[in-house]
């Protein structure tokens, strides 16, 4: 049960239930610093719930244990510390609609990291340039396309200089022509040293970018391996069935 020395995120016996319905059945998982992990699986398999437990957006059973950089994830004062280290990108962007794009990116560093305004603004403009949104800095989220909004959301998460980035189906709410621009930004992020855990239905992207791929079904980790292992030589019948269904349509 002990945590591997090299792992940044450690999940032990993660169990989560809504009343009588168990969504996660005792999941064990270690993710190393700098690793890019893609989580795939059918809808309702618990993928999103798994990553939402890592920053405690979902409460989970008390016997379960998750640590990020050695800090236990649980309600209380230490949680803010974990959340400052763990950025998250949501399926529906969740940008703050009443603030300009620039302010969206500046807010958390100013409030949580106590950055000064010029410092936060310099950093925000740099990040917006990195995700290709420089020209839209003064606009409001509602004036941007979905793909642009999601790139702002990535910049907003990066502004906290997190060690971990969680992506909860970041391209599922996008029009097909905008998926590419968001995946491009994520591809550039992978390999910058930030640890990424990505719930996705984009199999091509997972194969190309992931260090490891996790296949989940029915609230269990069915199979973990390199993209080649999962996509080319899956051991489990359930993995093969899922891949057949998503790849041959």
């Amino acid at each position: 049960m002990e945590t591997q020395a090299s792992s940044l995120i450690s999940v032990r016996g993660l169990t989560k239930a809504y009343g009588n319905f168990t969504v996660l059945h005792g999941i064990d998982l270690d993710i190393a610093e700098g690793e890019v992990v893609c989580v795939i699986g059918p809808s309702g398999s618990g993928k999103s719930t798994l990553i939402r437990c890592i920053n405690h957006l979902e409460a989970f059973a008390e016997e379960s244990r998750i640590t990020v950089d050695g800090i236990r994830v649980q309600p209380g004062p230490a949680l803010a510390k974990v959340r400052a280290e763990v950025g998250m990108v949501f399926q529906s962007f969740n940008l703050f609609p009443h603030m300009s794009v620039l302010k969206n990116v500046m807010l958390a560093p100013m409030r949580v990291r106590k950055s000064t305004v010029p410092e936060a603004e310099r950093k925000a403009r740099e990040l917006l340039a990195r995700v290709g949104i420089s020209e839209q800095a003064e606009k409001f989220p509602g004036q941007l396309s979905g793909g642009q909004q999601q790139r702002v959301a990535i910049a907003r998460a990066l502004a906290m200089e997190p060690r971990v980035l969680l992506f909860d189906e970041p391209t599922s709410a996008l029009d097909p022509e905008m998926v590419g621009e968001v995946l491009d930004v994520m591809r550039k992020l992978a390999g910058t040293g930030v640890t990424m855990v990505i719930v996705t239905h984009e199999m091509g992207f997972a194969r190309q970018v992931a260090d490891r791929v996790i296949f989940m079904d029915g609230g269990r980790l069915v199979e973990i391996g390199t993209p080649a292992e999962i996509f080319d030589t899956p051991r489990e019948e359930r993995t093969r069935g899922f891949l057949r269904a998503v790849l041959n349509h």
Partner: protein
Amino acid sequence: MLRRAAKGASNGMNLINTFFNVPVLVDSLPQLLWGLVVTLQIGVTSILVGLAGGLFLAVSRLYAPAFARLLIRGYVDIFRSIPLLVLLIVVYYALPFVGIRLSPFMSAVTALSLVSAAYTAEIFRAGIEAIPHGQFEASAALGLSNRHTMIDVILPQAIRIVIPPLTNNCINVMKDTALASVVAMPDLLKQATQAQALSANPTPLIGAALIYIALLWPMVAVVARLEKHFSRGSR
């Protein structure tokens, strides 16, 4: 024929002399305007205290422990149920028996603020609940504290939604200040009834009614415009 016409005209004159007697109105106008000042003092103070109290109750209800939440719910329900006139009379005439002696002004402001805070709390709660859950999640994921989540993210959005119902509540508080006249507060209505008694003519009452309308009509019109604006879904 002619006599009847003359009588009709004199009836008309009587009516004007009774209800719109210009000399009486001019005489009572300074008194009415003093009453208006008192009405505004009571109204504005109660609105501000009610707003602060209501916001505090609404936010506490989100984050306080279960027992405190229950207390807040009880407060909101009780003060929305009690007739304001009854509360005012209790505050002014009953509290002295337990040693709490409030001036007419303080009694009026206390009663109005207690009730206004209850309504305002409900309005803010509805406004906060209308904000998509994703906004709370995004704030939490960024590590924002509850306080900053409220101040920077939730309230600025919720306040836009609640401006029409809040303005409505302000109108109600302003109207209800007239009840202060029953605890001998020299507000607009009290001054008007006194001037009426003095001049043996109801014109000051009509004057007071017109002043209330002149004060509140613009607010009513603003609410109507805001509601139209928001129902159109524009930001």
